[in-house]
């Protein structure tokens, strides 16, 4: 494929945005999920309710927030509640249909690690930790995950179970008394994956335009399962691509400014 009209990253965001419906209530993780959720809102899902853990409900930012609590989120929200209420009434209350998460490490069953690389007590790399993810993973109706593929990120065994996906697979969630669906969708820069109905192992169901099975396997740390019938992900439409690029351009302009962190910087 010569001269692609879009990058793998753009394909990932657009494919993720398509998974959201107009009547979804989406708890938005930061980074890639935030872009996807807002592209959905600006294209086919204008009435989608986006919730950020800062307490902003029904937000409609004109630029993507750098953090989960930028002023833009509050300014454009239907209402903003305190953080205890956010986690009690809105997430735990069962009002979120989709929890949208990123991951530092992911395994084939949708378990996520954003806590440490290495041993918990003596980590090689101390990552930020779970934040809202452990309860987003448990209380949202279902979980979508989006991340770029890499051998470091998609691993046979994650170093720490920050948030629980399907555990060891099969009915592991039910055995723990978790009634929500857990991960039902993984969107990477190369493919769309859905859990096998029985084993719950993520299975490639659609390859993005021009991507081969070998490329997917080469950037994934476990032996990839491919569906019998694999679709090709429709490429981004002009509207999707323009919307995403405009959003990113507005965001870049808003976040850059002149850094001024003191004299010695």
């Amino acid at each position, binding site marked *: 494929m010569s001269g692609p009209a879009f990058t793998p990253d753009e394909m990932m965001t657009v494919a993720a945005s398509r998974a959201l419906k107009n009547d979804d209530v989406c708890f938005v993780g930061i980074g890639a999920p935030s872009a996807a959720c807002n592209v959905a809102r600006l294209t086919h899902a204008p009435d989608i309710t986006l919730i950020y853990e*800062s307490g902003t409900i029904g937000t409609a930012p004109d630029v993507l927030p750098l953090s989960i609590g930028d002023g833009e989120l509050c300014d454009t929200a239907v209402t903003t509640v305190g*953080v205890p209420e956010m*986690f009690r009434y809105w997430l735990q209350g069962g009002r979120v249909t989709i929890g949208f998460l990123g991951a530092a490490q992911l395994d084939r069953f949708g378990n996520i690690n954003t*806590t440490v690389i290495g041993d918990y007590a003596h980590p090689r790399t101390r990552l*930020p930790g779970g934040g809202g993810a452990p309860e987003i993973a448990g*209380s949202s109706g279902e979980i979508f995950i989006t991340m770029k593929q890499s051998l470091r990120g998609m691993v046979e065994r994650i170093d720490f179970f920050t948030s629980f996906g399907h555990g060891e697979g099969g009915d592991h969630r039910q055995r723990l008394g978790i009634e929500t669906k857990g991960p039902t969708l993984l969107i990477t820069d190369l493919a769309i994956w859905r859990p096998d109905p029985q084993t719950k192992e993520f299975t490639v169901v659609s390859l993005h335009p021009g991507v081969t099975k070998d490329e997917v396997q080469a950037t994934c740390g476990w032996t990839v399962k491919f569906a019998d019938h694999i679709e090709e992900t429709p490429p981004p439409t002009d509207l999707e691509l323009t919307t995403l690029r405009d959003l990113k351009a507005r965001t870049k302009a808003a*976040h850059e*400014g002149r850094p001024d962190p003191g004299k010695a*910087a």
Partner: protein
Amino acid sequence: MAKFQPLADAVRDNLNDGDVVAFEGFTHLIPHAAAHEAIRQGRKGLTVIRMTPDLIYDQLIGMGMVKKMIFSYAGNPGVGLLRRMRDAVENGWPQPLELEEHSHAAMANAYEAGAAGLPCAVFRGYRGAELAQVNHNVRSVTCPFTGEVLAAVPAVRPDVAFIHAQKADRKGNVLIEGILGVQKEAVLAAKRSVVTVEEVVEDLDAHPNACLLPNWTVGSICQVPGGAHPSYAHGYYGRDNAYYIAWDKIAADRETFSSWMEENVLNAGPEVFADRVGKLRSAA
């Protein structure tokens, strides 16, 4: 009853070596000026609590003031990791750092329980999450009606809480609006509290249900315009995202960090904050 005083006096009167302290703020209204004053006063052996420790906790840790941190997300939001905190955890520099790590839901509930005078918070959480195995303060209670097993964590009850708010009236009633975080809970849960504010006004002119700390719930109030920078104050100035991005480089290196702290914190005072937000005011 709230006492108006200079920030240096309020920090001196309220923060002691070895205290359990929360400088709270959820992206919005982070009390940077108060933390910098604590750094200048060189308090030691602190246990610091915060849902989202970011730059100021990176600074407190890097300055060797912190023994233990209780938290749920330690990152520079949207930018990356906290490099001073990593250095303490991974290499013990400048001293080892004990961690008590929770989820956001647990911390938010723990603050709520602290404000509510309860010994613990009860919620549905941590299911299948490994933190429940490494943190001995994650336990459970069983619902006496349904038999459901719910998570329990101890209430957060700091010795002292520092927050930043938009304004106080002359009687000392404090108004917070916009993204509220857990600031009200932090003050109500704490034994002592210091609130820095953008301004002191005659009348708050607030909505009947505005988030408000009545004067008798607040210890000290200090007027520090810009005191949240590089965080922001809704209605006053915007978040200095460029500063957050730049911090990543400053914190990457021990010497760069130390000389930056020397120049911008140790040799500065609360009055520098007003200048720092000058150009961000239009963006608010």
